[in-house]
């Protein structure tokens, strides 16, 4: 157990406890704040995986973008007196069984498989090589992603605004 291992287990614990808080909390606002800590924990694990650029992207986009969107959605859709989600759960037993089966299968397969390992040292810097890869090997998905973002932006605006004008 060196410092790397201790740090990993600490952040893994933070991530998993926060994720448990997201899916089991009764209040949707508490769930959103648990999701904040889960995102930060995942970003810390990315740093431990020598993916500094992805970690910063994770914090900027997930915490700064998606989580803010989610909190806006919560504030705009929950009634003032119903922050507590009464009867907010569907049938619990099948969900627990299904999620447990999936978890058991995944962990069993992932831990027993002999993965091919390169055994290389972690990359010194990642931002520059990622940029080079985006411009060479992944240039088509990169351009498609930009078009997709534009379509999603325009689509979101149109969907969210549509029936202000013509209330059916």
């Amino acid at each position, binding site marked *: 157990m060196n410092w790397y291992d201790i740090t990993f287990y600490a952040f893994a614990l933070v991530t998993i406890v926060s994720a448990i808080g997201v*899916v089991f909390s009764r209040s949707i606002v508490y769930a959103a704040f648990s999701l904040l800590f889960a995102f930060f924990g995942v970003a810390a694990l990315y740093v431990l995986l020598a993916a500094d650029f992805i970690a910063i992207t994770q914090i900027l986009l997930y915490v700064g*973008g998606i989580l803010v969107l989610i909190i806006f959605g919560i504030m705009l859709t929950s009634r003032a007196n119903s922050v507590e989600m009464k009867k907010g*759960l*569907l049938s619990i037993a099948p969900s627990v069984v299904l999620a447990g089966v*999936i978890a058991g299968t995944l962990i069993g397969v992932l831990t027993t498989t002999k993965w091919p390992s390169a055994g290389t040292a972690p*990359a010194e810097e990642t931002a520059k090589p990622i940029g080079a890869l985006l411009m060479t090997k992944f240039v088509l998905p990169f351009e498609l992603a930009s078009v997709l*973002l534009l379509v*999603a932006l325009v689509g979101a605006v149109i*969907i969210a605004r549509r029936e202000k004008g013509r209330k059916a």
Partner: protein
Amino acid sequence: MSLHVELGQFLVVSAILFSLGIYGVISRKNAIMVLMGIELILNAANMNFIAFARFGVMNLSGQVVAVFVIILAAAEAAVLLAIVLNIYQQLNTVNVDEVDKLKN
């Protein structure tokens, strides 16, 4: 599996995250809670990509794929929240089991 942190530990963490996300998606009624479950699932998938980029034979390609996953997650969250807001204005609910009308 030893206690020393290698590929396996990261994969186990991501598998637990994935299962929790699945549980959130199928047990919750609120559409925004379903979205949070989906985000957990996408994070788990991303962690797998990056873990294999570090320990496996993917090198940096795994990290580039993770960037694309984050982009898709952002686009999906924006569109889904627009749909949820629209549904809330029309039907005054965001519970996915009460939204059963295709038309007024």
